[in-house]
């Protein structure tokens, strides 16, 4: 009986300490948990392909999660936030039945915290759906930019931002890799065998851009897409946003009280000793007097 009670107490003690140790571990796990979503946007970048309806399906689900109607050449949708996982993207002629056989489809795996562009690319005769990985980081104080060449009329272009060449001799339906550039407002020049086109683009620090070269009504056009934006100069460390007025107060240091007790003890001890000594002396004197 006594042994059982002791065992129970020991188990409770173990459980309590496990709980105390477990709380910080659980808090840490919560802090490191990241959102399990990614981003996708859909684009039509095939110059001689008529408008399409674009469908996004979660893998294995025949009900579309996103449908974009009548997407014409040159259109890039905003990003949609979706749960990480496997998806398929299908294109049908604009207005076609949602249950009809798609003209094109492709699969895309969306990882948490990553962004993707799924674009119809190439000429209509060789139309394909291409999955592009979009960047979400920049070096501190810099901008990142890439070029998509979607002009069929001028099949080879060279694109520069100010004096920085972003893509040299980029062929139709090709995509350059991202490049780091000094932020600012500069002239974007697209040069081709058929002539040059210029426009102005502002690329801020901490932003990621895609420049899309398109066939316009009159020659080449450049669309400046902002892929992502953050703080150009991220603050160092955390934020000092509190003064403790609502925080819990600890019991404070016991040192001053211990010092008082120590001093009192010394005083009492000294007084006690002196009394004892003078008492002894008086008793001695009394004895001597008898």
């Amino acid at each position, binding site marked *: 009986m006594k042994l059982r009670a002791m065992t129970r107490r020991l188990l409770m003690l173990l459980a309590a300490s496990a709980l105390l140790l477990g709380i910080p571990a659980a808090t840490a796990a919560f802090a490191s948990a990241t959102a399990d979503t990614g981003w996708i946007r859909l684009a039509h970048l095939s110059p001689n392909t008529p408008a399409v309806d674009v469908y996004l399906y979660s893998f294995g689900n025949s009900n579309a999660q996103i449908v974009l109607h009548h997407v014409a050449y040159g259109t890039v949708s905003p990003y949609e936030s979706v749960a990480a996982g496997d998806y398929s993207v299908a294109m049908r002629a604009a207005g076609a039945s949602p249950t009809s056989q798609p003209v094109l489809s492709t699969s895309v795996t969306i990882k948490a915290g990553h962004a993707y562009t799924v674009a119809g690319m190439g000429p209509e005769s060789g139309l394909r759906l291409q999955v592009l990985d979009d960047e979400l980081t920049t070096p501190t104080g810099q901008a990142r930019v890439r070029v998509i060449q979607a002009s069929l009329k001028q099949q080879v272009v060279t694109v520069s931002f100010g004096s920085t060449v972003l893509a040299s001799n980029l062929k139709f339906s090709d995509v350059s890799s991202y490049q780091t550039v000094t932020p600012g407002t500069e002239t974007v020049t697209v040069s081709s065998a058929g002539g040059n086109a210029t426009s102005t683009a502002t690329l801020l620090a901490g932003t990621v851009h895609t420049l899309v070269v398109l066939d316009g009504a009159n020659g080449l056009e450049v669309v400046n897409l902002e892929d992502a934006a953050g703080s150009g100069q991220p*603050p160092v460390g955390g934020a000092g946003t509190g003064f403790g007025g609502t925080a819990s107060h600890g019991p404070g240091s016991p040192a001053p009280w211990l010092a008082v007790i120590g001093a009192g003890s010394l005083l009492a001890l000294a007084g006690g000793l002196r009394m004892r000594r003078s008492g002894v002396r008086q008793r001695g004197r009394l004895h001597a007097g008898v």
Partner: protein
Amino acid sequence: MSARRPAAAFALAVGLVVVAAGTAGLLLTRHSTPALRPAAAGVAALPAPTGPIVAPPQPSDPRPVARPVSLVIPLIGVNTQLITLGLTAGGALQVPSSTSVAGWFTGSPRPGAIGSAIIVGHIDSISGPGVFWRLSELRAGDEVYVKRADGTLVEFRVTSVQTYLKDRFPTQAVYGPTPDPELRLITCGGAFDYATGHYLSNIVVYATEVK
């Protein structure tokens, strides 16, 4: 010589009284005062603000959105003007000089534009609650509104609430680029270090614009 005896007795008595007082003082100050806790969520709820709610911008739209002027978080009773904040000389995030207003970090995107907009407020002053005292009560799905200088409203929904030790602050996750219009609300939390006068952690509320 015998005059010493009352003096010694006096010293002994005073010493004992001092020891008793010291012991009482020590025992009486051994308890700790708990943290001031907010009332149950929703008690001071405000109505959602009214005004034209705007859609997120297109990625190719070069027009800047209007600057933010105020922040409303109905569930936790926050309705504050937004001041503008930059960086300190040391490169840290500047914080409002008043504990009762929040501020927008001008080095971050404007709320409702593409990217991660940063709004900062104090959890408390030296004596009581600050503007973001109840920020940690927010949960995924809660609404946050930003009013802009042109009278438009941007509506955000909380996606997550995280607590980070300041010496392990995730700069990229908080300040890094995002492809959609998002908001981060930052305040202090966790344990308070009385030696340095600072909280050891930051609470970050992540929210995304409602379409």
